[in-house]
């Protein structure tokens, strides 16, 4: 309830920009906020805290006895669970392997779309398609592309005389790279759109002035374009890293973690632990470890961002 009183106190007292109508507000905000606040507390904040608590219990699905506190036993078990750490490693390879090419390709596309090219409208329209498609359909579609017999990829390779092709998604060596390509394809639109919007905020005069001064394309990019889009680029990359590390549906449909666990992302691992084997407590502990990993990665990333900001 402290936030309630605090909000009441500060609402009329903060005459910042955009708060002018607040004076006559009275109890307005509470009436406006509650319809969203209650579901957030009951179905998001509450369950998250509950989930963290579950990690310290032996909760299981369909268990008749009472659930007991077991302290950090789940985490100790997790520490020695080599399968989980292998999955965790795959998750990191996947998240970085998707995010980096995604960013570079999206940056290239955004720079192209920012130019005055013909066919730009078509590229803009097409760039959106992967964004609108259900993830499950993206997975199904690429299964068909990768299909050893009727697939587009092997057919193209055969046409180019590059061998008879292979079964990409079941090969131990090719499965993870093949899945990463799909991840890049699926996530490119959001990144492109964000970067393109950043580019459109770049002052054009600066660009022209730099060109008049004889700066080459690369120098113009480094000194004019990049500083302008840097905040957007950092924000979207941070989000992509998180989203990719937590992704599930694509790989579930493409390989379901196979072959031999080579593409078993941490989310797939935790899902199986919770809903195939019913180990709720243990799976919740995995979730906690994933949150911790993401938080640390974000902290490092943001610290780097602030330092970089000082230099600029």
């Amino acid at each position, binding site marked *: 309830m402290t936030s309630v009183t605090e*909000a009441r106190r500060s*609402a009329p007292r*903060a005459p910042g920009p*955009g708060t002018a*109508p*607040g004076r*006559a507000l009275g109890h307005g905000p509470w009436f*406006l*906020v509650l*319809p*969203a*606040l209650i*579901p957030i507390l009951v*179905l*998001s904040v509450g369950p*998250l805290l*509950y*989930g963290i608590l*579950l990690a310290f219990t032996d909760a299981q699905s369909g268990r008749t006895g009472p659930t007991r506190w077991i302290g950090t036993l789940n985490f100790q078990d997790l520490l020695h669970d080599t399968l989980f750490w292998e999955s965790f490693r795959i998750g990191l390879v996947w998240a970085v392997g998707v995010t980096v090419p995604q960013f570079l390709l999206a940056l*290239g596309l955004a720079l*192209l779309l920012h*130019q005055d*090219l013909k*066919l*730009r409208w078509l*590229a803009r329209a097409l*760039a959106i398609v992967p964004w*609108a*498609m*259900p*993830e*499950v*359909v993206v997975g*199904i*579609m*690429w299964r*068909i*592309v990768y299909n050893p*017999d*009727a697939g587009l990829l092997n057919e193209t390779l*055969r046409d180019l005389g590059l061998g008879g092709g292979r079964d990409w998604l079941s090969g131990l060596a090719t499965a993870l790279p093949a899945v990463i390509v799909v991840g890049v*394809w699926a996530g490119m639109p959001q990144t492109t759109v*964000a970067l393109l919007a950043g580019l459109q905020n770049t002052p054009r005069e600066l660009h022209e002035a730099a*060109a008049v001064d004889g700066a080459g394309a690369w120098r113009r990019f480094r000194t004019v374009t990049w500083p302008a889009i840097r905040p957007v680029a950092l924000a979207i990359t941070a989000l992509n890293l998180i*989203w990719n*590390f*937590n992704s599930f549906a694509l790989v*579930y*449909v493409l390989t379901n973690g196979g072959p031999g666990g080579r593409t078993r992302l941490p*989310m797939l691992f935790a*899902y199986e632990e*919770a*809903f195939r084997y019913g180990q*709720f407590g243990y*799976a919740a502990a995995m*979730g*906690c470890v*994933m*949150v911790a990993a993401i*938080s640390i990665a974000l902290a490092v990333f943001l610290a780097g961002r602030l330092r970089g900001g000082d230099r600029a």
Partner: protein
Amino acid sequence: MRTSTSARVGQYAALLAYLAFLAFPFLWLVSTAFKPPAELAALHPTWIPRDPTLDNFRQAFDEQPLLRAALNSLLAALAAAVVSVVIATPMAYVMARHRTALARAATGWVVVSQAFPFVLLIIPLFLVLKNLRLIDSVPGLVLVYVVWALPFALWMLTGYVRAVPAELEEAAAVDGAGRLRTLVSVTAPLLAPGIVATALFAFITAWNEFFFALVLLKTPEKQTLPVILTHFIGAEGVADLGPLAAAAFLATLPSLVVFAIIQRRITGGMLAGAVKS
């Protein structure tokens, strides 16, 4: 600024490569959906089916309860879109107009909620919904979708509210309009396009969603389209490509149509939300 001819050629080559990478998988899906089995088994499949057929679509409807699933998806997505926007709009208004501790906490939640793996959320939700007897039911799924769509809805709507000048509301207040009157007859009409765009986006997100539906819905008659689509893929990972492609193609159409309508507003809204946070 002049760009040299060779640079232009390079740019077009790059653009064409992007177009191919983005479009070919989808075109291949469409092509596969219209191919008869004999052509799918052929050693050299073609882009354009030599003998196009609708058999795959017929077979897809025979094999899986696609209509039922589409209806479930439609209900869940519509309900989630309407409810999330109805409850998010007033809150977004407060977040945009009042710099209270609550507004800051809500913004924090929007950001933090992106970082949590669904698995940490779904286990407790599964237990809670089970106690409420809402497991394996579309209303239970809608509850989850509403909360899941809220962060993005709040983000977008806050941006749209900020775009409405506070001076307009002040002017109405000076003219003697009450608080509610101002909201209803001044702010709401200006917000309407943004609200519609946000609702449609929430609709697509729910229509496309897979993970929560997979965990929460067990009975085939209650499952949504994405979950039913995965049933086309057998336990051994072997799938009948034709019907699979046909069903996947149909499931995508609503998302594509809705997205085409709102695309511009969504990109605008994403940034509007980002400008001042």
